[in-house]
């Protein structure tokens, strides 16, 4: 199997309070079928062999569904290509001798913990503020009793596909979380089970989003372009309409 060598310029930051900087490494024995995350594993093996501190990064499922991994590769969150997380970015996207600039997702609301690890707790707090339902949805049989149009179900599924990775925030020039919040609001707003708390939910989630220090939406759509689940910015209209209606009605 032929291998390649890539140059990696990776963000090294020992702790949240210390300054970070890009450090250059050459990674040998990279196979085209490796994922980007596996390539970082190889880099870390080299660093361990030399007795150096490894590059910290998040990853869990490594099959593109958990939303743990994520960093900015060559200026694009999750790297080049569409509809995939960093663990589904394969080294065949690069050629021998390429330089990969690797940085953490950057936002005031996502403080860097170490190297490529950022604290995405802001997303959890937004969900906790209202991203749930209180209706008892019962068992599978009960679910089938409630008739929901295919088109509505599809829209709800599209929004519910959000894995909360934070790439939308990382891509946005304003570090705005509007696509994430809209997906989390919309998937419940489309469905009957989401109606009881619909108004309260949107107001509380938007208030929490404000508190976390995310920016505003400039309607550029960079978020949709990098979203591993290709969640459409069309859901943003649900967030805006629900929120504006709630506030103007004095909720």
């Amino acid at each position, binding site marked *: 199997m032929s291998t390649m060598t890539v140059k990696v310029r990776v963000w090294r930051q020992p702790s949240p309070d210390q300054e970070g900087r890009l450090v250059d490494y050459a990674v040998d024995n990279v196979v085209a079928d490796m994922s980007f995350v596996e390539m970082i594993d190889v880099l870390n093996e080299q660093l361990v062999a030399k007795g150096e501190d490894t590059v910290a990064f998040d990853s869990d499922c490594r099959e593109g569904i958990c939303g743990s991994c994520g960093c900015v590769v060559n200026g694009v969150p999750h790297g080049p290509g569409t509809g995939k997380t960093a663990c589904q970015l394969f080294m065949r996207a690069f050629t021998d001798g390429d330089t990969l600039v690797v940085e953490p997702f950057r936002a005031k609301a996502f403080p860097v913990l170490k190297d490529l690890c950022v604290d995405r707790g802001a997303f959890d707090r937004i969900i906790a503020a209202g991203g749930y339902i209180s209706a008892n949805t019962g068992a599978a049989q009960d679910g089938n009793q409630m008739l929901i149009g295919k088109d509505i179900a599809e829209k709800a599924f599209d929004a519910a596909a959000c894995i909360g990775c934070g790439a939308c925030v990382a891509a946005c020039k304003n570090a705005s979380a509007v696509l994430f919040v809209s997906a989390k609001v919309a998937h419940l707003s489309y469905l009957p089970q989401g109606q009881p708390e619909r108004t309260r939910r949107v107001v509380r989630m938007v208030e929490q989003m404000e508190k976390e220090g995310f920016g505003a939406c400039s309607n550029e759509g960079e978020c*949709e372009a990098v979203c591993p689940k290709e969640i459409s910015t069309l859901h943003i209209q649900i967030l805006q309409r629900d929120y504006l209606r709630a506030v103007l009605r*004095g909720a």
Partner: protein
Amino acid sequence: MKRILALLSSDIGRKALMGLTGLLMIGFLIMHMAANLLVPFSKEAYNAYSHTLTSSPQIYLITLVELALLALFAGHFVTGIVVTLKNWGARPVAYQRKDPAGGPSRKSLASSTMIYTGLVMLAFVPLHLATFKYGTVYEVATPTGEVRDLYRLAIEVFRNPLQSAWYLIALALLGAHAWHGFGSGFESLGVAHKVGLRRFGQALAVILMLGFMVVPVYVLLGGGAS
């Protein structure tokens, strides 16, 4: 009032207000541009239009409209500056490398420079009012009496190449601002992003820009010489 303040407490509310004020101002600009197009055709018609707007009793209505426009302008730039400053603060450590994401993204030079083109408008509008509305008052006799000769002022102003150049630059920036602003304004108000609507806005931006450029270009090409 409480509800308006609640609206202004979030970016979604502030952006909705920014979108609404921007779109209403585009509505005004369409009328303004249409009236300007009288200049190359008829000095009399142009002066008569301006005279009609400023005669009693319409002047009372026009004054209300002007106050409303002032409120729109102020609301637009205050929300614009507040939101932009907050946006800049939302990413304290900049990326070392940041590339356009491509694909479905609508990011453009116009969308990336809204605050700058907007700040030029913030400077342009008071200067424009000082030059024309509060500028030199020439009088001209007509069959129905003396009216303000706004036409003569326009010709004089644009005969100065520096003034014309400044107007052409400002109008190009206005076009860029409206290019992104029209579609984005609707999106901020909760209207779904649709390619057709965005393209319509971009076409409107170009029409507005070219329409407003007619008068300075007409004068630069020797139009209005008496």
